[in-house]
Each structure stands twice: as structure tokens, then as C-alpha cells.
């Protein structure tokens, strides 16, 4: 029982990182129709940005974090400008490969520029550690991530109802009519990628400080969140924002359940369990979690 409670707690905390990544993936998919493989790298790049400002340049801590987020946003805008926009008339697969290219490029740059030392650490916002009633220690930093997720998701929900948010949805549904009412589809695309990159950046600068990090941290490093984020996004039917949040948390929990003693002897139990879970959910609810069928 205790073991279960601990897995649940850790699952939600790790899952909130996945949720942030999934929100960005769903947002971009909804507006550009692109499966964005660079979403996690927006986070790692933001993390490196914050690290450079805080540790190497010794900027004031919060200013440094802010710088990291700005770096992430700039990377999002550059991705739109240099890859998505020029390839906009190509097939979605081409765009997908384009975003994978972006991820590989920045990971390459990270290895090249930050190889010595390979392992780095960004200070946390708070070093406090709390011990839960079940004895499992959790970091204040993880709780901050969860809080940021809640605020970001709420802000996004409000934003999507605002004129600019409506324009974002309209641009994907009817680009021609969008231009005709005076909305620049181009600007909407830039805005979308900027916001998605900010969400990735938040995941990066927050979770990057949990332990140490290396190049490619959020894509395949210690803090890997790309694949879980994609699974969460698929669980959300690639369209529901609340679904992306729930999906991320659920993926985090299922992953932790794979570490329970009852699966102790199965190698790769977490990954296996996650896969089984994904297949079962998609069989039972092909439209995804928290997605109204009527809107499909």
C-alpha cells in the first residue's frame, strides 16, 4: 500500500514534466499539424541557456532562468522561421523529419560546445526536501514544477478563449478565411511555436535542476520526456489540452507502477507497462482521454 502511494506521488511529480512537454506537442500539432520532435530539445536548450547565464556568466539566479526561457522561445521561433515555414507545403512527414533534424542539430551543438565537463548542474529554485508520510522524499523543486504546470495549463486555457487564441485555432481550421478576417496565419504560426517553446523551456529549466544534466537531457538523457510526452499527447487525441495534462500525469504514474516490487524481475517493466497501457487506452477510447467525440 505504501509502495503504491509512493509510486503515485512520484508518478504525478515526474508526470508533470511530461505534461508540460505534451502541452507543447499538442499545441503545435493542433495549429501546424506537425509532430514536433524538437519539443523536448526546446527544454534542453532553455536549460543550457539558464545554465550559461546562472553558472558561467554568474547572472542573478532568476534573471538567468528567464534568459533560459527566452533562449527556448528564440529557438522555437527560429524553428518556425527556418524549418516549418520553408517546408510548409511539403508533406507532414517531411516536416516531422525537419523537426527531428532540429533536435539532432541542437543536441550536436550541445555535445560540441559543452563536452568538458560533460555533466553539469543547474542550482534549484529551492533545495528543500520534504519527507512524505510514507517515507518517500520529494523535492520542493518538483512541487514547483507541478505548480507551474497547473498555472501554465490554466493560462493556456484562458488564452485559447481569447481573440488571439481563437485566431490560433482558426488558422488551422480555415487559413484562407483567417487571412480574410485580417488574421495573419504567418504570425499565428510564429506565436504558436513561441508558446510551445516556452512550455518546453519551463520543463527544461525546472526539471533540469533535479539532478545533473548532459546534452540531449530531455530527449534521451536522464530527464527524458520526449517519448512519454508523445504518449501523453496521443492519449490526449493530439488535440485536448486538459487531456495532455492528464495524459502526462497518467504516463508518469504508469511508469512508476512498472517499478513496483511485483514487477521486480521483469526487465524494462516500466516501458512494457506503458506500452500495454497505451494500447489498451487506444483500443477502449480511440479518440483519446478527455476528448469529446463530437469535436473529433
Amino acid at each position: 500500500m505504501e509502495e503504491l502511494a509512493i509510486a503515485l506521488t512520484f508518478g504525478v511529480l515526474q508526470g508533470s514534466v511530461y505534461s508540460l512537454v505534451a502541452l507543447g506537442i499538442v499545441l503545435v500539432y493542433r495549429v501546424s499539424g506537425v509532430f514536433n520532435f524538437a519539443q523536448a530539445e526546446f527544454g534542453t536548450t532553455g536549460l543550457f541557456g539558464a545554465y550559461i547565464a546562472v553558472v558561467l556568466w554568474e547572472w542573478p539566479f532568476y534573471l538567468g532562468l528567464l534568459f533560459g526561457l527566452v533562449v527556448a522561445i528564440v529557438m522555437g521561433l527560429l524553428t518556425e522561421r527556418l524549418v516549418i515555414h520553408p517546408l510548409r507545403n511539403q508533406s507532414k512527414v517531411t516536416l516531422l523529419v525537419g523537426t527531428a533534424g532540429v533536435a539532432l542539430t541542437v543536441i550536436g551543438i550541445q555535445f560540441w560546445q559543452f563536452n568538458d565537463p560533460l555533466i553539469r548542474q543547474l542550482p534549484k529554485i529551492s533545495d528543500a526536501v520534504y519527507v512524505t508520510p510514507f517515507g518517500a522524499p520529494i523535492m520542493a523543486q518538483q512541487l514547483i514544477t507541478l505548480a507551474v504546470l497547473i498555472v501554465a495549463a490554466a493560462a493556456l486555457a484562458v488564452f485559447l478563449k481569447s481573440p488571439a487564441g481563437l485566431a490560433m485555432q482558426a488558422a488551422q481550421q480555415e487559413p484562407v478565411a483567417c487571412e480574410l478576417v485580417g488574421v495573419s496565419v504567418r504570425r499565428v504560426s510564429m506565436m504558436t511555436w513561441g508558446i510551445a517553446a516556452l512550455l518546453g523551456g519551463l520543463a527544461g529549466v525546472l526539471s533540469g535542476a533535479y539532478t545533473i544534466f548532459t546534452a540531449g537531457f530531455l530527449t534521451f538523457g536522464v530527464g527524458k520526456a520526449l517519448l512519454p510526452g508523445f504518449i501523453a499527447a496521443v492519449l490526449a487525441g493530439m488535440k485536448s489540452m486538459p487531456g495532455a495534462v492528464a495524459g502526462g500525469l497518467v504516463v508518469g504514474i504508469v511508469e512508476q507502477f512498472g517499478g513496483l516490487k511485483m514487477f521486480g524481475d521483469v526487465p524494462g517493466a516500466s516501458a512494457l507497462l506503458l506500452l500495454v497501457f497505451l494500447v489498451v487506452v487506444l483500443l477502449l477510447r480511440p479518440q483519446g482521454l478527455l476528448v469529446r467525440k463530437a469535436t473529433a
Partner: protein
Amino acid sequence: MALLEVKDLVVGYDAFPVLHGINFSVEEGELCVLLGLNGAGKTTTVSTIAGMLKPQSGSMTFDGKELKKGSPSARVAGGISLCPEGRRVFPRLSVRQNLRLGSWVRRKESKTVRRQLELVYDYFPRLAEREGQLAGTLSGGEQQMLAVARAMMSKPRLLLIDEASLGLSPTLARTVWEVTKRIKADGTTVLMVEQNAGALPYADRALIMEKGTLVYTGVGDEIRDVNLREAYLGV
């Protein structure tokens, strides 16, 4: 001075010309109907005025100022609004959200937006009843009403409507034309593209287009002449 003046307009797709130098003007406060058969170039004409296509040569003046190359956004901000062929409503947004986006260029003028919203709901009470419904689930006729209403939300001086009657029952087509007449009476100049000669009685001015050239321009009672319909439209 005419509100819209089109001179020697040549427009084509790639190098292939579709409009071979057309001339016409629309006076302020008029309802002008542009008639022609399939492929005559009607959509090309209004798309060019709305800034979606670039002319190869010729000029367009609106309210005395030349319309230079510019985006549809610039045109709608300048008072020219197009209700496009094929409706193009935002399917997964509600009726109300569609209308709010229609007033995008005036989104900071909340009073104007509210007034326009009341106005279009008055034109099309059906839309008011279905305010919360997703536009994609409206009937074809309702979508057409929404498309016209959305184009009116920017409070244009010149409203371009491309084949609003397409796919509508004769009764519903007449309803839409009646509303168009009311829009004109309320002070918006209208240029309406039609293939259906039934729109003629509502018009103050008629233009008839054939294969990219205007073959007839008329004003007032002469356009209601039956011979005219026979000569050009075969009805």
C-alpha cells in the same frame, strides 16, 4: 466619385490571364451584382479586390485611394470585406466565436463589436438561436448566413459576397438577398457575385461577365429587363 473603381484590370494564374482588362465602378450605397456563368472570372475579380490575388496590370481605387499590392488583412482593415466562395466558416469554433473573429481588425473597439453583433443577429435571427453551436454542425444555409454575418463583423464600407445563393433553396436564397438589401440600406455598399439571375431584382447595378470580360453594365430599371436575361444568361 465611385467608392470602388476598377480600371483595365488584368489578372491571371501564373502567366495565363483570366481577366482581360475589365472596367467597372461601384457607387457608394449601391448594391451591385456581378453575374456570369461558371468560369467567367467572378471569383477572380472579387478575390483580387480583396487582396488575395495580385493583378498583372490595371488599377483599383477605393474611396479615391489606389489599392496597392497588399494583403487581405490590409484590405479588411481598410474597409473591404469578402465573404468567400464556399463559406469557409471555422468548423470547430462556435457561431459566436466565428463572429468574434470576424471583428478581428476591430477587436479593440468593443462597442463597435457589440453593435455589429447585435446587427448581424438581427439580420439572421437563426444565428442568435445557435450561438453556441459549432459552425461545422450548422446546415449549409446556416453556414452561408454565418459567412455573410462574419464578413459584416468588421463593419466594412464595401462588402463583397461570392455566390451566397449556391446550394440554397430558392426561398433561402431570397432570404439571403433580402438581407443583402437591408445591409445596403443600412449603409454598406455591396458587390455581390451571382450565377443566379434571380438576384437581379435586388440590384441597383448589374455587371455581366463572360470569359473574363464584362459584356454588359447597366443601372436602374433597365437591368430588370427580361431580354437582358435571355441574351446573356439564357434564362
